[in-house]
């Protein structure tokens, strides 16, 4: 029993080694997490769907295959969760929306297929902001998620359910998605590690689209090593996503132990200006000094157009989403209104009833921005400024290897605090959105707690396809510190 009680404290590698050396079975590991979910999820609401039966069936099968030596990989026997916008065959996939509340996906997303083939065990589907639109997990049609560090606070969003899941160790790893900060911001609020790789590094096939030119999937877990192990399984070319990149996938665990001596870290002065909470700033400064002490070189860089990122994002993302979400029309899947009187009524009522307010607001803004007479002023202009933002990063990376700064301006805010003020909510993402617009890889790793007792994450931005270097840097930090192993007392 004592062993089962401590499985949730293990890393991915620890679980893998445990099941492969026969210390415990995949079934025991699976049950350990299922039991924790049963115990803690009612309080956190981090899962929308728990796939207990199929997880146990998978566990039996994987135990067998491990015994026969058919499965040996790093994910074999490891339980995991998925944000509920990854299609998983035979499993309800809701996008936290009433539109899809009964949608049993007929197919697996590319990443779901990869994890399944690698011998992972799917525990369930994580709560999120509806269609990934939100920064607090309050737009979910399945209720808000509570932050394990303080259950009166939000976990961040849109991958808030995933962040809470990892923080409370209700799974050793989950996949999130990041369109403007949806992995990095909740990772910061919940004291976990999460990486959004370079756009195109991981196939988007089967990931229900919010904004296609920004969406990217990535792992969320306690440590950088866990993320590296996961990335090894899910990264790479997929013939079903023509925007997935045909570049070799390195072994992301190979260079974790490289020294960071001489590493040139850029601090964008705009990320440390007015708007950054003083307490958060203090924690960031302390971590930067730790890097400096280990031989890193700190330089100031400038991203002069970064203040335009939020406005650009709120044109580009809604424009793409207005079109991406048109397929939800009540005809082939999803919510259909009762007794439509004609075709128009079918569309208008099914969509009105199926989508929540934030989703509808963004669809309308996007529709407006693309409509005749406004396209040039909004969409085209935003695309031009998007290039300026990208060029800022290109210039900065001439002088530095990586960029560091806060993931968010504050620690987790109170549930309901910004719910009725969309603009205040949008500004939560001011440090993460520029990175998304440029398509660069970004990650968050835990660096301590502010005086309010809430976690603070460091955002680390690399140049294109430099994920291995970023994971190495975060891993090194995690060798000197133990922030990433800390779990709220009531979920320990």
């Amino acid at each position, binding site marked *: 029993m004592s062993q089962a009680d401590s499985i949730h404290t293990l890393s991915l590698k620890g679980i893998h080694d445990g099941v492969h050396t026969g210390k415990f079975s995949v079934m025991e590991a699976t049950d350990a997490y299922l039991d924790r979910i049963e115990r803690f999820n009612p309080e956190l609401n981090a899962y929308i769907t728990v796939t207990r039966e199929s997880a146990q069936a998978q566990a039996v099968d994987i135990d067998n295959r491990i015994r026969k030596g058919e499965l040996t990989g790093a994910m074999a026997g490891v339980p995991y969760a998925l944000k509920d916008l990854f299609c998983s065959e035979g499993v309800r996939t809701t996008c936290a929306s009433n539109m899809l509340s009964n949608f049993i996906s007929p197919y697996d997303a590319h990443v779901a297929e990869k994890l399944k083939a690698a011998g992972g065990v799917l525990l369930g589907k994580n709560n999120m902001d509806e269609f990934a639109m939100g920064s607090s997990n309050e737009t979910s049609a399945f209720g808000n998620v509570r932050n394990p560090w303080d259950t009166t606070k939000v976990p961040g969003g849109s991958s808030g359910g995933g962040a809470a899941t990892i923080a409370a160790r209700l799974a050793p790893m989950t996949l999130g998605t990041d369109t403007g900060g949806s992995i990095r911001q909740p990772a910061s609020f919940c004291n976990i590690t999460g990486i959004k790789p370079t756009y195109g590094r991981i196939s988007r096939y089967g990931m229900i689209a919010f904004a*296609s030119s920004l969406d990217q999937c990535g792992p969320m877990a306690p440590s950088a090593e866990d993320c590296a192990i996961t990335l090894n399984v899910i990264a790479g070319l997929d013939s079903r996503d023509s925007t997935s990149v045909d570049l070799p996938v390195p072994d992301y665990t190979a260079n974790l132990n490289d020294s960071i001596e001489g590493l040139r870290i850029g601090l964008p002065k705009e990320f440390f200006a007015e708007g950054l909470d003083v307490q958060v700033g203090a924690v960031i400064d302390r971590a930067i000094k730790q890097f400096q002490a280990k031989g890193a070189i700190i330089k100031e860089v400038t991203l002069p157009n970064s203040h335009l990122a939020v406005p650009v994002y709120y044109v580009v993302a809604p424009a793409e989403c207005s079109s991406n979400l048109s397929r939800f029309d009540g*005809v082939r899947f999803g919510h259909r209104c009762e007794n439509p009187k004609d075709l128009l009524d079918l569309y208008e009522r099914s969509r009105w009833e199926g989508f929540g307010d934030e989703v509808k607001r963004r669809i309308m803004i996007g529709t407006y921005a693309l409509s005749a007479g406004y396209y040039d002023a909004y969409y085209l202009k935003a695309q031009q400024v998007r290039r300026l933002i990208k060029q800022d990063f290109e210039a900065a990376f001439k002088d530095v290897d990586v960029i560091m700064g806060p993931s968010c301006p504050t620690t987790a805010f109170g549930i309901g605090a910004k719910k009725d003020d969309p603009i205040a909510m949008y500004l939560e993402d001011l440090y993460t959105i520029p990175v998304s617009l440029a398509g660069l890889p970004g990650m968050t790793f835990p660096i301590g707690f502010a005086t309010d007792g809430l976690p603070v994450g460091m955002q680390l931005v690399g140049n294109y396809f430099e994920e291995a270097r970023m994971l190495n840097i975060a891993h090194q930090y995690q060798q000197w510190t133990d922030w990433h192993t800390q779990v709220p007392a009531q979920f320990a």
Partner: protein
Amino acid sequence: MEWETVIGLEIHAQLATNSKIFSGSSTAYGAEPNTQANLVDLGMPGVLPVLNKKAVELAIRLGLAIDADIAPRSIFARKNYFYPDSPKGYQISQYELPIVANGHMDIQLENGDTKRIGITRAHLEEDAGKSLHEDFQGQTGIDLNRAGTPLLEIVSEPDMRNAKEAVAYMKKLHALVRYLGVGDGNMQEGSFRCDANVSVRRPGAEFGTRAEIKNLNSFKFIERAINHEVERQIDIIESGGKVVQETRLYDPDKDETRSMRSKEDANDYRYFPDPDLLPVEITPADIEAVRATLPELPDAKKQRFMVEYALSAYDASLLTLSREVADYFEAVAQGCGDAKLAANWVNGEVSKTLADNEMEIAAIPVSSAALVELLKRIQDNTVSNKIARDVFAAMWNGEGSADAIIDKKGLKQITDTSAIEAVIDEIIAKNPGQVAEYRSGKDKLFGFFVGQAMKASKGKANPNTLNDILKQKLEG
């Protein structure tokens, strides 16, 4: 006062690919509803389009044949509108930077002149599904098998000035599409469809307001629909009204166009570059690779036929309307060594019999080699041209080779003069009155004797020999 008609055509040609433009579903026609609609075609949440290389190659192929520019960098865009046969709520099409631009095609006018019609652009896009309006408890059924079928939309300049020019352009483009193997052009199955933009104006004035007529899926309909629309617009203007810019649907049963209510508020398509599809790059090497596989183009082939086979422009243009006909002709001409004879037969008996049977040359039961055998029997006087037509009909019906049929039916021409003399002697003996009349100067009766002699020989007498002997004997 005079009115001038202005017509531009938008033609949708289905491309001859095995799979759809953005998915691996089959494009085969006629399957059970929704059995060829996969996750991508259904617009399921999370799926992504992946462009079919063959569709791009076929577009380049047509572009080269109309002497157009092939875009080195081409962009796909989303055209947003809600309609049940459009599963994603948008159609993937091209807006800015279409794959083909600035082409042209020359058409033959009735008076024999040539007119150049500009082709503004040709872009790739996906087809929609089909709405079936049979009653399903008062509802419409949607079949998405056709959704995602690759189309090339070929947009002409408003260069045509009457319905006949429009038909000539459409026919020529239809022939070209088939010629190049870009599409099968099957109009019954909707593989070649036409929308017409029609307006009227005073000669020399600015363009008038145009109406777009949809659903012109046969050469017959397009002419009737345009003429009807022109009359409608002139009537409106002459009675003091104004033509409204709108989409109209041609109803072939009633022979009229009517306004399409369903398209009324769908006019803000919110085109934007599809973020799921990166720009398509077409290198000079890609273009040259396609060019190397281009067949001889119809206009070049026609010129060659006129020179190489000494054919009239008329014969040559008929023979080059389709590649299959041209190939058939060339095989026959080379086999029998007489191009004029081959041309007469292919443009005559062959095309007439095909038309009577509503058949394409690809399905012809008489191979070019079989026809050569028959034509050789004409050349060596075994049969007359007239008897050969009967032999051809028998060959068509599968009764055997030309020689076998001639043999079996005893159709071999009689060239033996003594046999023909015997027949003629008998006829002269039987008709003394007519002989006397002829000899007294009634030359016209010669035909009567020819007819009688042919009848007696069951048509087998060699006509030249028969004429000679008859003349001798009657003069006798």
